[in-house]
């Protein structure tokens, strides 16, 4: 069986200032959530957008957490795009719930749009990792 999966959660934002609750369930075949990455169609909607996240009932991010803290540009290598969790976050069918809040005052022509939240699911055992650690550094 594969050891990695990138599970996508889509959140539809219809109008400026929308605050949308979302809920999903992680794939049962994977043990751990290693990281998270948020993708939005334009940098303009990223400024001031916030996301709250709970996995398996445990607080991961408060509602005021900026989406920018878990997203980056296209020029970043795929393995380094994810915000990596330093502690063990249980997957295996855990509920993922949260709230995405769109910033007000952005360009109305951008709406509606989808936010894609990617969860990096893995099956390996827990190893504490430092945020920003490069994939190549671990496997020279």
């Amino acid at each position, binding site marked *: 069986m594969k050891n990695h999966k990138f599970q996508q959660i889509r959140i539809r934002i219809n109008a400026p200032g929308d605050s949308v609750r979302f809920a999903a369930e992680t794939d049962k075949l994977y043990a751990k959530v290693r990281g998270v990455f948020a993708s939005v169609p334009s*940098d303009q909607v*990223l*400024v*001031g957008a916030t996301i709250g996240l709970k996995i398996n009932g*445990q*607080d*991961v*991010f*408060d509602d*005021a*957490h*900026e989406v*920018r*803290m*878990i*997203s*980056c*540009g296209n*020029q*970043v290598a795929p393995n*380094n*795009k994810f*915000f990596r*969790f*330093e*502690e063990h*976050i249980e997957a295996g069918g855990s509920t993922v719930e949260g709230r995405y809040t769109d*910033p007000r005052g952005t360009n109305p022509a951008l709406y509606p749009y989808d936010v894609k939240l990617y969860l990096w699911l893995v099956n390996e055992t827990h190893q504490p990792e430092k*945020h*920003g650690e490069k994939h190549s550094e671990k496997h020279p």
Partner: protein
Amino acid sequence: MTKIRYHIIQLDVSEYGQVVEIRHRLPSNYGSCTGYVARHVKGISSDVDIPEIGLVAVEFNSRKQLYFNDLVGYEAQVDQLPEYQELNIPLESGQLVTGFYLDTQKNPYPLIDIKEWFRPYQVAIYLKCELQNGKKHVRSSCIHPVAAEAAAN
């Protein structure tokens, strides 16, 4: 149970050159602070990066530890993931995080009045904190005087 909490201190800057006081109480179950990021959230708009829009100074444990001074910049484009700077500060329960943020923006249009050019903006300081292990809240009246004396010695 997750042990890491990302605590956010939001600061609103409404005037040119303003000093914004930081006076914030962290939850008492936080045991240590292991990282921070200070960044512009919203308000400023520019086509190019601005390396410095302000300075931030933060003290922990009710001014007992002056821990970091940092520049806050503005990024015009989304680039790398923001990285937490490392800290290792044991937190005393119920103590304050204090300090200030100073707006140091330079007027890019010297012929235009500052009031027309300046826009209010928001800065956030993210503190990565770890919860204390096995923290139990015990009322002081419940502590036996002999045990308290032994602990003091």
